[in-house]
């Protein structure tokens, strides 16, 4: 009887010691995702609290995607990465902070939303920009960030390269085209948000090669009549990718919350928020809801055109790659 009483008392006491946990996650992201993750973090924290009773606080870090990846490799304690391209997450994987096959851990190759590259021009399109050819013409001032530090800039660079390769027929001619285009770039910002500042707020340049979502945001925030979006004949399917940083979450004991955070990007609410912030959702429901807001254009993938990010980075953005060859020469 005494034993039963003890067991009962212990069972009753358990809830007294059980308590909800609190976690803090650091999401290291690229430049233009500030607005998306501000809303998403609030939504996730509420959903996670409702589901688990635990409180999760998410801190954000934004910057050029390549620069952010280097910061994580250098010790920035990111629980999750939401970077502009898989190649930057690969750089973190190469530092053994997460496994090499990280892209297989989440649906859609760990790309919960996609985007593409478009042109933002000034109201009335005074330079009559229609396609990539126009960006290499004399007298056209082009704004794009530095591909050495910005993931978005790498998408821009490769989109221009592939356009020229298809139109003019060879890698050499593509290189010559991209070289002409970069001669028209007066300022290289380190990230996409910096380039938005250069073009939109500082009033520099005739055309801004922009993330689609960033172009929509600029129009919405600074006036529909002040800017126009020009959709080129060909662009790239940009697939920003996300991953949990295993070494960090295991050390901080935040794996469950970090994994739930990224999985929530694929939920109906997460996908809806992506569409609301002008990212192209991958989920069927949100895809249908936001389909009309996105222009239709021919998109190629990095795998098809460049053999994946590893090869593309090696050929174009590594030290001595094509970007160094054309830009250092200028």
């Amino acid at each position, binding site marked *: 009887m005494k034993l039963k009483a003890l067991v009962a008392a212990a069972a009753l006491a358990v809830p007294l010691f059980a308590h909800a946990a609190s976690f803090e996650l650091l999401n290291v992201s690229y430049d233009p995702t500030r607005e998306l993750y501000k809303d998403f973090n609030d939504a996730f924290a509420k959903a996670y609290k409702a589901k688990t009773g635990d409180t999760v606080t998410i801190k954000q870090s934004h910057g050029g995607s390549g620069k952010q990846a280097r910061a994580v490799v250098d010790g920035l304690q990111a629980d999750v990465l939401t970077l502009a391209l898989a190649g930057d997450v690969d750089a973190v994987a190469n530092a053994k902070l997460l496994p090499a096959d990280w892209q297989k851990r989440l649906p859609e190759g760990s790309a919960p939303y996609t985007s593409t590259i478009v042109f933002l021009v000034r109201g009335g399109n005074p330079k009559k920009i229609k396609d990539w050819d126009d960006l290499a013409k004399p007298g056209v001032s082009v704004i794009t960030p530095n591909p050495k530090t910005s993931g978005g800039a790498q998408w821009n660079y490769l989109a221009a390269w592939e356009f020229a390769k298809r139109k003019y027929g060879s890698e050499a001619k593509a290189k010559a085209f991209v070289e002409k285009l970069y001669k028209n770039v007066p*300022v290289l*910002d*380190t990230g996409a948000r*910096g380039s938005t500042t250069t073009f939109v707020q500082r009033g*520099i340049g005739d055309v801004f090669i922009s993330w689609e979502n960033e172009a929509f945001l600029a129009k919405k925030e600074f006036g529909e009549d002040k800017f126009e979006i020009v959709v080129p004949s060909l662009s790239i399917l940009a697939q920003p990718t996300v991953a949990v940083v295993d070494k960090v979450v295991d050390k901080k004991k935040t794996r469950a919350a970090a994994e739930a955070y990224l999985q929530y990007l694929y939920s109906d609410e997460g996908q809806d928020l992506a569409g609301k912030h002008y990212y192209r959702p991958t989920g069927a429901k949100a895809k249908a809801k936001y389909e009309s807001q996105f222009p239709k254009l021919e998109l190629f993938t990095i795998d098809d055109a460049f053999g994946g990010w590893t090869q593309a980075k090696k050929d174009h953005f590594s030290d001595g790659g094509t970007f160094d060859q054309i830009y250092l020469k200028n």
Partner: protein
Amino acid sequence: MNITGTYGRVILGGALLATSVGAAAQQAVTTEDVDQRLRILERKLELEKEAADAKAKDTPSTSLSDKGLSIKKGDNEFKFNALVQFDGRWFTGDTVPTTADTFTFRRIRPTFQGSVGKLVGYRLTPEFAGSSASIVDAYIDLKFSPAATVRAGKVKGPVGLERLQGGGATAFIERGLPTELAPNRELGVQLQGDLLDKTLNYTVGVYNGSRDGEDGGATDNNGRKEVAARVFYEPTPGIGFGVGASHGSKRGATEAPRNYATVDRRTGISYAANTSYDGDATRISPQGYVYTGPFGLLGEYIVSKQELVNGANRGEVSNNAWQVVGSYVLTGEDASYRGVKPKTPFQSGAEGWGALELVARIGELTADDEGVAIGAFAATGVESIQNLGVGVNWYLNSNVRVAVNYNQTAFSNFSGPDREDEKSIFTRLQLQF
């Protein structure tokens, strides 16, 4: 030229226009072109500044000043400081042989200290004065919060008020008599911190334990430990009081109690041969100070109870000491527990004489006559030391101090004629940064 301002833009715009006009024959340049070029230049400057600011965050900042050398990057810091004291020590009268008159380096102490991240701090101070080098301070801090830091290594035992004062900040060249009963440096681990909006400082720790006034050895020679604690309440800056205490056990013939010195660092009260510890040792020291404007007053009392044995005789010997130290800064600077900082540093051939401080001290150390009963003190030995001292400190600047002290020490013996007074004039040139 600052081209980010309105005037700068006008000037630069004009220059660009002039250039453009000159080139007009070659190519028509519109005002829009000039405006764009100007905006591009401004943006490039803006980006260069952003890059420079970001780089500055990653670049260690080095500062060399009257506070020493500091190299800092984020939460990591390395500091180099030093304290050098060169003394002239002269005795008047016939009680001390003239061979005791000497020039000597009292302290030559470089200090290497800093932090590794927010959590870890460290300090290493070797001593090069004297016949051989030694380690004065060597400890590692784990700084969990301002209220809780764990310090492990060789540290000052948290009991005596003047002992805890920096060696370059004491009013007199040598500390007063209570320091003879307080622990000096000890090896141990202590928890320390500030509470109640930094008005209450506390330290509690466990140490190898040292004899009265002694600098503890490299290891414990009896395996018994001493616990010590101190609380000090400073409700307003410059006015504070508190109490320090220690308790431990010492036993064995290898642990003879240490003789007590005068303020001139000469033997004052001696223990008889074959006297050793044989039980508990406890110290209690109430203490306080008042520093208000140019006036300063520091007072402390300490009692040191030790169970001693000499042959078949055993007993508790309770020695005590006290002192009151007054100071007044003639040149109007604020007196302080941490020393005086001159308002106008001394400059040769120009105005500025530094700060001048007068100091006076009275104190006494009394041995327990129970010590005579058990044979720990000779029946005709010194029972008490009384010190009266006056001095002048001239702070040429925040780094250099010249001091002159006169001390007269009187002795009362347990029985028989008293030892003659000891009179000394000590001088010091001190460099500290």
